[in-house]
């Protein structure tokens, strides 16, 4: 499978590393070349300096042959725009993006994008854990 990952932060680099270990062809795009060190020495994929909201950058990253596009930069709006470029211009079937803002996440999920919202997910996990060690919590 060919994958383009936009954003080489902790999440982007980790996803890219795991997919690379599983034998997929991965290209990671980030505006900051320093961020590629997170990929580690054993990373066998490609890296590209640039922003994923630019069609030319995506093209150079190999988006035209990509099966999956993942947008996980720190900027919600950048992820949203890049995801829509990938879907609308390059017609990538599997586009996954991170949106921190729950309201924006809800809006774009309804528009058919595959969104992940760490804010709601992590909050729910924390509440679950509290419920686990404080069974009386729910009754208060």
């Amino acid at each position, binding site marked *: 499978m060919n994958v383009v990952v936009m954003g080489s932060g902790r999440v982007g680099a980790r996803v890219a590393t795991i997919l690379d270990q599983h034998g997929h062809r991965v290209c990671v795009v980030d505006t900051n070349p320093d961020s590629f060190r997170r990929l580690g020495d054993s990373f066998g994929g490609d890296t590209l300096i640039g922003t994923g*909201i*630019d*069609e030319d950058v995506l093209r150079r990253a190999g988006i035209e042959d990509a099966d999956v596009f993942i947008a996980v930069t720190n*900027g*919600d*709006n*950048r992820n*949203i*725009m*890049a995801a*829509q*470029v990938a879907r*609308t*211009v390059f017609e990538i079937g599997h586009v996954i993006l991170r949106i921190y*803002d729950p*309201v*924006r996440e809800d*809006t774009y999920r*309804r*528009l058919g994008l595959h969104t992940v919202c760490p804010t709601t997910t992590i909050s729910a996990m924390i509440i679950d854990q509290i419920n686990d060690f404080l069974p009386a919590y729910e009754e208060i």
Partner: protein
Amino acid sequence: MYIIVVGGGKVGYYLTKTLLVEGHEVLLIERDRQKVEVFSERLGSVVLAGDGAEASTLSAAGAQRADVVIAVTGEDEDNLVVCQMSKVKFHVPRAIARVNNPRNELLFQRLGIDVTVSQTEHILKLIEQKIPEKSFVHLLNLRHDELTIVEAHVSGDSKVANKRVSEVEFPVHCVIAAIIRGPDPVMALPSTEILPGDELIIVTHAAEEEMLQAMLSQ
């Protein structure tokens, strides 16, 4: 009309000022609180501090009853999301986005933005108009780009020179709106003779612009 402007850069500030003078109800949304203070002093209480891409800010701004939202920040991704959130979540009838990278104009239109404004493109066109040796200049798009206004310079060896307007076979949907002769505009009547040195101002279907250019450049 109630107009919400997002982004308090130079464009947003002067836009807000002009729209207020024109008598519209305007609200300017800006993230930077220091700017909000300065703008509030100058413009009055028409400035709201917040992130225009966030639903809570748009809701506080009364986006539900806005007629137009105009996103003019320096970042295309922010302008896109402000416009999409306004349309999808608050059903704002008209969303206008400033496009910093001219190549995003088409994309934004495909993604549902009603109107895009590209400063770069405008400046490029203005510069083109000022280059004297260009004989055929695209001036303006009208009505969703279906019609355009062009300006053509008539040289001495042009095949339309020294002919009457009625004698020239222009493409079907071309209308000469005016002839600029020296400092003056001249009406283009069928009997008017086109002289070398004239500038023809022509309204044409966009589809016929190339044909017209080929014809007038010969």
